[in-house]
C-alpha cells in the first residue's frame, strides 16, 4: 500500500526552485531517507508532504493516503495532518510548546481528531507506554524532560493519533549518541510491529544506513541520486554522493556492519516482490542547475 506518492514536485520561493523531488514512493513499513547538506531542500520536501509550505509556489503531484495534498482544501489537509502523517522535528524540546504540559498537548491533539474523554486518556497512556515512557511524563512540561524523552513523546503523539507515516526531520541529530540509538530502536520496532512508514530527512549517513530502505540524495534543491540504500551508500554513482560518504570517515565500516538488515536480510512485512524496482527513482540525473545566488 503506497502511503506517499510524489511526482515532479517542485517548490519555488520567489521564482527559484528550492526543492525538487521527481519521484518518491513510500509504502507501509518502509523507510525512505532524503539526505544532503543543509539548504539542499530536503526539509522543504518534507513539509510539502504535509502541505505546510505557506507562501511557496508548489507544483507537481503529492498524494498522501489517497489525498492530493497540493489541491485539497485546507479542511481536508487538517484531517490528514497528525492523523495520517505525523511530524517529528529536530530539536525535540523546541518542538514542544514550552508553556504546555505534554499531556495537555496530547489531549488537545486527540480532541482535534475526535478522540475525547476516557478513550483519549487510554490512547495517550498506551502510546506513551509503546515508546517505553512512564505515563507520569504526561504531567510534565517540556523543560522537565530530557531530549530523548521529548523525542519519544513526539513519536508517541504520532502513535496516539494513529498516523501511518512519520515524517521525521533530523530526529536524532540534536541528541546524544546513546539516546540516538534509543530513538532508532523505537522507530525500527514500530516499523516492524505496526508497519509504520518513515520518511526521514537526515544528513547523518550512519543513521540512514541503519534504517533506510531507499535513499534520495539531494543537492541544491534537486535529487542527484536515488535508489536502494544498500546500493547508494556502498556504490554511489554520483560524485556528490561519493563526497558525502567520504566526509564520514567511519561510514564504510558502519555500513558494512549494518548492511544485512538494511538490505532486507530479515523478511520485511511491508515488502512485496518488485516493490523495490517500482520505487526506482528515475530522476537520478541532476535535472537542472541552480541559478547563482
Amino acid at each position, binding site marked *: 500500500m503506497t502511503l506517499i506518492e510524489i511526482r515532479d514536485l517542485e517548490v519555488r520561493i520567489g521564482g527559484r526552485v528550492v526543492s525538487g523531488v521527481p519521484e518518491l514512493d513510500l509504502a507501509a513499513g518502509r523507510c525512505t531517507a532524503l539526505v544532503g547538506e543543509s539548504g539542499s531542500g530536503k526539509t522543504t520536501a518534507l513539509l510539502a508532504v504535509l502541505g*505546510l509550505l505557506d507562501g511557496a509556489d508548489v507544483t507537481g503531484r503529492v498524494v498522501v493516503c489517497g489525498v492530493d495534498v497540493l489541491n485539497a482544501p*485546507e479542511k481536508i489537509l487538517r484531517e490528514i495532518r497528525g492523523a495520517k502523517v505525523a511530524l517529528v*522535528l*529536530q530539536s525535540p524540546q*523546541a518542538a*514542544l510548546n514550552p*508553556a504546555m504540559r505534554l499531556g495537555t498537548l496530547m489531549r488537545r491533539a486527540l480532541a*482535534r481528531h475526535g478522540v475525547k474523554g476516557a478513550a483519549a486518556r487510554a490512547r495517550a497512556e498506551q502510546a506513551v507506554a509503546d515508546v517505553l515512557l512512564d505515563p507520569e511524563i504526561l504531567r510534565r512540561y517540556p523543560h522537565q524532560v530530557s531530549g530523548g524523552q521529548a523525542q519519544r513523546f513526539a513519536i508517541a503523539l504520532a502513535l496516539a493519533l494513529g498516523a501511518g507515516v512519520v515524517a521525521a526531520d533530523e530526529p536524532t541529530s540534536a541528541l546524544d549518541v546513546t539516546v540516538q540509538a534509543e530513538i532508532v530502536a523505537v522507530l525500527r520496532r514500530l516499523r516492524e510491529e505496526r508497519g509504520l512508514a518513515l520518511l526521514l530527512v537526515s544528513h547523518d549517513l550512519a543513521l540512514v544506513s541503519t534504517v533506510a530502505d531507499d535513499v534520495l540524495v539531494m543537492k541544491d534543491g534537486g535529487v542527484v541520486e536515488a535508489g536502494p540504500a544498500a546500493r547508494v551508500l556502498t556504490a554511489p554513482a554520483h560524485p556528490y554522493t561519493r563526497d558525502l560518504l567520504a566526509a564520514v570517515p567511519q561510514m564504510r565500516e558502519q555500513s558494512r556492519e549494518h548492511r544485512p538488515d538494511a538490505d532486507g536480510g530479515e523478511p520485511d512485512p511491508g515488502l512485496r516482490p518488485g516493490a523495490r524496482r517500482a520505487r526506482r527513482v528515475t530522476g537520478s540525473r541532476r535535472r537542472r542547475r541552480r541559478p547563482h545566488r
Partner: protein
Amino acid sequence: MPRYLTRRLGQAVLVVAGVVGLTFAVMRLVPGDPAVAFAGPRATEAELAAARARFGLDDPLWTQLWNYARDLARGDWGVSLHTKQPVAQDLALAFPASLELVGAAMIVAVAAGVPLGVLAARFKAGLPDFSVRLTSMLAVSLPVFWLALVVQTVFAGNLGWFPVAGEYDNSLDVTSPLRVYTNITIVDALITGNWPIFTSTLWHLVLPALVVAAYPAGVIAQMTRAALIEESGQDHARLARALGFGRIAVLTRFALRPAAGPVLSLIALVFAYAIVNGFLVEAVFNWPGVGRYAADAIRSLDTPAIAGVTLLVALLYVAANLAVDLLQGLVDPRVRGR
C-alpha cells in the same frame, strides 16, 4: 523560586527607598519657603517660626529625610495646602475612582488589543494586518487630553449620547444613597444592588474609559502581534499545525500561551502609564480621582499633595512590576522552575 523571590523583593525595597528619597529631593527643590506657603504671605514672624518648627524645617536635611520617611511609613503623608486635609486621606478617597476608571479602560484595552493582535498576526502583511497596525499606531500617537476634549464635545456635547462629566448623577445620592464598602463606586453599587447608581456610573464611564483605553489598546495589539508572530515561527507552532490545527487555533490555543509572559508584563506596565494618562482625562471629564486632585494641586502649587500623588503612582508602579514577575511565574513554567 524562593531565592528569586527574596532577591526580587529586596530590589523592590531598594527602589521604594530610592523613590522616597527622590520625591523628597524634588520637593526640597521648591523655590521659596514652604513655611510661607503654608502659613500664608501675610503671616507674622512668630507664625512662620511655628510653621517651620511644625514641619521640622530647621533640622538638618538628613534628619528631615529620615522624619519624612518615618512619617510616610506611619501613614502621615503631610497636609494638603489647598484642601487642608491630610494628603493620605485625600488620596484614599480619590484613588478608588481612578482605579475604577483605569480598570475599566484596561478591560476595554485587553478585550480590544489581544484579538486585534491575533487578527494581525494571522493575516500578517495582509490588509487586516495593515489596518491593525495603522489603527494601533494612531492610538498610541493620540494626545490623550485632546482626544478627551474631542470625544467629550462630540459624543456628550453635540450628540448628547453620554453624560458630559462626573462619575454618576449626584442627585442619586438623595434618591438612592450608596453604602460604601470599597470606595470604588461601581463595585459598591454592584455588591449592594444599587442599580440606579450602577447604571449611572457605567454610563458615565463609557467615554473617559474609551479615551484612556486608546493608548494601552494600541500597545497591547502591537505587542500581541509581535509576540505571536515570533512564537508562530517556532518549531512548536509548526508541530501544532502538523497535528492538524488551523492557523487561528495555533495562534490562540498554542502561541498565545508562551507569548503570554511578555504580553502580561506589558499590560502591567501600561497600567501604570494609563493611570497617569488617566489624570489628564479625569481633569477633562471632571472624574473625582487622583488626576483631578493632582490637577487642582498643580494649579495651587500644592507641593505636599503633588508629592503624595507622585509617591502613590511610583509605589503602584513598583508593585505592578513585582506583580508582573510573580504572574510570569504563574503563566510560564520555565520561570517557575528557576
